[in-house]
């Protein structure tokens, strides 16, 4: 009795599974970048990864990355590929939550054929408010206040983001920033006015 094993079909299915996973991760990263209003140039500035490589990550085309061909040859620990994806993800706020699942094809099944690329990335959600809003607040807050106020905003942003999506959370966040700036600016003006008043009094006392 002869048993036929569809080895090519098996490898193709593994490959298409990983390609799909890679593309999903790339899309997630791209969507996250766009939601934060970041361009590829911003990411290039921060990570020093060139445009072609960033585009390759977003398209899930890891083979185009330095050392990417290792994936085809069965080197599962393609360091450059992992580091490039990790730097990009970190840059847009997927800080420590990125994990790589390296799955080696079972040798008994793969026989003597080199395994298909098998690096896939799984990202868990980590909602981080837009940096620009944070920067605006930095201009008007005291050092001690920054921790608490920005922390409060981040907490509510995270809650809203998981309930209503990133766009709605961004809208809420910017509205909070704009309405918060008014009382903060008023406080700054009051302080400035007091300083001016004191200086005027000192000047008058000197002239007498």
């Amino acid at each position, binding site marked *: 009795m002869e048993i036929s094993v569809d080895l090519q079909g098996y490898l193709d299915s593994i490959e298409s599974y990983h390609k799909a996973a890679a593309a999903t991760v790339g899309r997630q990263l791209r969507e996250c970048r766009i939601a934060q209003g970041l361009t590829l140039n911003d990411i290039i500035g921060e990570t020093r990864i060139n445009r072609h490589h960033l585009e390759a990550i977003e398209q899930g085309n890891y083979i185009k990355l330095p050392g990417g061909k290792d994936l085809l040859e069965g080197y599962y620990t393609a360091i450059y590929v992992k580091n490039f994806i990790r730097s990009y993800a970190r840059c847009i706020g997927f800080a420590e939550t990125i994990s790589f699942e390296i799955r080696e094809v079972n040798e008994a099944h793969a026989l003597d054929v080199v395994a298909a690329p098998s690096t896939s990335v799984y990202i868990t959600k980590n909602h981080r408010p837009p940096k620009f809003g944070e920067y605006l607040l930095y201009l008007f807050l005291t050092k001690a206040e920054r921790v*608490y106020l920005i*922390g409060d905003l981040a907490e509510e942003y995270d809650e809203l983001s998981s309930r209503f999506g990133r766009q709605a959370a961004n809208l809420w966040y910017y509205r909070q920033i704009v309405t*918060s700036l008014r009382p903060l600016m008023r406080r700054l003006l009051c302080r400035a006015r007091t300083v001016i008043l004191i200086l005027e009094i000192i000047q008058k006392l000197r002239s007498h």
Partner: protein
Amino acid sequence: MENQTRSQLYLGEFEEIVLLAILRLKQDAYGVRIRQEIENETSRSTSIGSIYTTLERLEAKGYVKSQHGEVTPERGGRAKRYFKIQGAGAEALNQAMIDRTRMLDGVDLKWLPAW
């Protein structure tokens, strides 16, 4: 003498609301919760900036006291700041309520024209 004490105990309308929110929240009174409590109960949209500037004023007057809280991951590793009402704050709030009740005495809000 009485007038002086009263002016010292003066509370702005928003200060009053913030103090009441802290009282309602008890042990859980920090920025996010205070803002949400005010928004839910008064249906007025409130910014976190106005909450903090008011709390800073109240703390300077000695009406509230704050303390460092725990750090959580959703806050990006930043600590919470819990607020607790002080004796002077409770007294000021009490005085504001007495003044309001006195002023409302004999006034029928039902018949006021809405313009």
